[in-house]
C-alpha cells in the first residue's frame, strides 16, 4: 500500500529516525568508551590491573578457559540451574496464585505468611538449606525457587484479582461457573500481569542460582566468582560476571520477544 505523506510529515519522520540512530550510536559509543577507558587505565597502571582486571584480560581469560573446557561447563551449570528454577517457580507460583484466587478464605488465612516470607531475606536460610538439601544442586534449586516463588505468586494473584468486576458480573448473568470465569476472563485478562511476572522472575532466578552457588556449590559461575575472589584471580571473577551479564540479558530479551509476540497476537492493531 502506497501512502502519500506531506512534506512536513516526511520532515518529522526524518527527524525521528535521526534521533533513534543518534541514541543507538551513543549507546554503543558509551560502552566502547568505558571499555577503552578501563583498558587504558589498566595498561598505563593508573589503576592496578591485578585488582581491576581489564577487558583484554577478561577476553583472554574467557578464551583460554573456554578452550580449556571448564568455563563453558560452569556457565552451562548456572544456566541450567537458573532455567529449571525459573520454570519451576513460575509453575508453582501460578498454581499457588490460582488456588488463592479460587479460595478467598485460603487467601485470607495465608496472607500474613506470605508477607513474612516475602520480607524474609532468603539468604538467611542458607545454612538450613545445606543441612536439609545437602551441598549439591538440590540446595541451589531450592534457593532459586525460594527467591522467586513469593514474588511470582503475589504478582500473578494481583493480576487475577484486578479482573474487571463488570465483566465478571456479565459472565455471571450468563450463568457462568467459576471455572468459566477463570478460563474465559481471568486468565486471558491477566496476560500482561503474567508477562511482567516473567520479566521480574528472570532477574530473581539469576539472583537465586548465583546466591545458591555462593553457599554450596562445586560448579557454576557463582562458584567461580567465590573461588576467584578467594585466590585473588580477579580476571576470573570479572570474566564470570561478564558471562552472567550476557546470559541474563539474553534471557530477558527472550521474554521481551515472547511478550511482543503474544501481545501482537492477542490484538492485531
Amino acid at each position, binding site marked *: 500500500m502506497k501512502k502519500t505523506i506531506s512534506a512536513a510529515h516526511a520532515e518529522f519522520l526524518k527527524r525521528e529516525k535521526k534521533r533513534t540512530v543518534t541514541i543507538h550510536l551513543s549507546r554503543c559509543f558509551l560502552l566502547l568508551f568505558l571499555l577503552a577507558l578501563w583498558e587504558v587505565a589498566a595498561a598505563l597502571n593508573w589503576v592496578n590491573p591485578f585488582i581491576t582486571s581489564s577487558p583484554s584480560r577478561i577476553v583472554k581469560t574467557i578464551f583460554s578457559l573456554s578452550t580449556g573446557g571448564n568455563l563453558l561447563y560452569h556457565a552451562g551449570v548456572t544456566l541450567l540451574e537458573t532455567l529449571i528454577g525459573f520454570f519451576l517457580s513460575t509453575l508453582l507460583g501460578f498454581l499457588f496464585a490460582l488456588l488463592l484466587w479460587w479460595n478467598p478464605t485460603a487467601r485470607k488465612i495465608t496472607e500474613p505468611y506470605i508477607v513474612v516470607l516475602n520480607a524474609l531475606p532468603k539468604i538467611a536460610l542458607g545454612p538450613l538449606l545445606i543441612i536439609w538439601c545437602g551441598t549439591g544442586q538440590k540446595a541451589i534449586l531450592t534457593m532459586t525457587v525460594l527467591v522467586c516463588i513469593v514474588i511470582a505468586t503475589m504478582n500473578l494473584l494481583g493480576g487475577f484479582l484486578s479482573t474487571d468486576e463488570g465483566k465478571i458480573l456479565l459472565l455471571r448473568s450468563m450463568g457462568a461457573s467459576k471455572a468459566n470465569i477463570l478460563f*474465559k476472563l481471568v486468565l486471558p485478562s491477566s496476560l500482561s500481569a503474567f508477562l511482567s511476572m516473567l520479566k521480574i522472575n528472570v532477574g530473581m532466578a539469576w539472583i537465586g542460582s548465583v546466591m545458591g552457588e555462593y553457599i554450596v556449590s562445586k560448579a557454576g559461575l557463582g562458584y567461580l566468582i567465590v573461588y576467584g575472589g578467594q585466590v585473588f584471580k580477579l580476571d576470573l571473577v570479572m570474566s564470570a560476571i561478564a558471562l552472567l551479564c550476557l546470559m541474563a540479558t539474553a534471557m530477558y530479551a527472550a521474554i521481551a520477544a515472547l511478550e511482543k509476540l503474544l501481545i501482537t497476537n*492477542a490484538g492485531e492493531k
Partner: protein
Amino acid sequence: MNILKFTNVSMNYHTKRQETQALDNLSFHVERGEFCAMIGPSGCGKSTILSLAAGLLAPTAGKIERDGTSVGYMLQRDELFPWRTIEKNILLPLEIKKKNDKVARARALYLAEKYGLKDFLKSYPDQLSGGMRQRAALIRTLALSPDLLLLDEPFSALDYQTRLAVCDDVYRIIKSEEKTALLITHDIGEAISVADRIFVLSARPAHLKAEHKVGFESTTPPLKRRECEGFSKWFEILWKELNA
C-alpha cells in the same frame, strides 16, 4: 401475562460496618412484550433490583417470579472482551451456556448481520466507535434469545450525541425482535422516550413511589417521542415526583 413479578421484596446488604436496607417491600410486574423503565435517585438500589431479577442475588424477604428463566443483562459499559473479535464476543454467551452449535451460532451471526455488524465481525472492540460497541453488546445479549432484557443504564457511559442515537438504535432492535425489556436509568428523558410504563422509586430503601402508563405509540421511536407534545408534560410530572 407477567414475565417478571416482584411481590413485597426486601433486600438487606451486610457489610462489616453496617447492615444496609436496599429495598423495602417493593412490588411491581413486567408484562410480556412491554418496555418498562425504572427511575430513581442515584444510589437507591436500582442495580440491586436487576441483580435480583436476573437471579444473581436472593431477596431477604418477598417473592420474585420469573416466567421463562432466560434473562439477558446489558450493563453500563459494553464489557466487550478486548482480546476477542466482535464475532467471538457475540458468541461468548453460547460458549458459556454450552450451546455453541451450528444453529445457535448461525442465529447469533444472522442477528449481527441484520443489524449492521457484518463488516466488523473480525474486528477487535477497540476498532469500533462507542455506539457500535454498545450495539455489539446488545447483539451479544440477544445471542441466547432471552425472554427478558435487563438494561442497567446501558447508555450512560456514552456522550450525549451518541447516547440519543444508540438509545434509538437499541429501542428499534429490541422492538423488532419483540423482546420484553426492563431499563433502569436516572435519566428521566430517556425513560419517557423508550418506556410503555415507568416505575418511580423512592430514595433508599427503595420502594415503589408511583407507576405511570406513558401512552405513546410503541411504534414511535425514542427520538420522535422527544418531539411529542406529551413529552415535556411527563418530564415535569416525573421530575417533581423524583424530587418530592
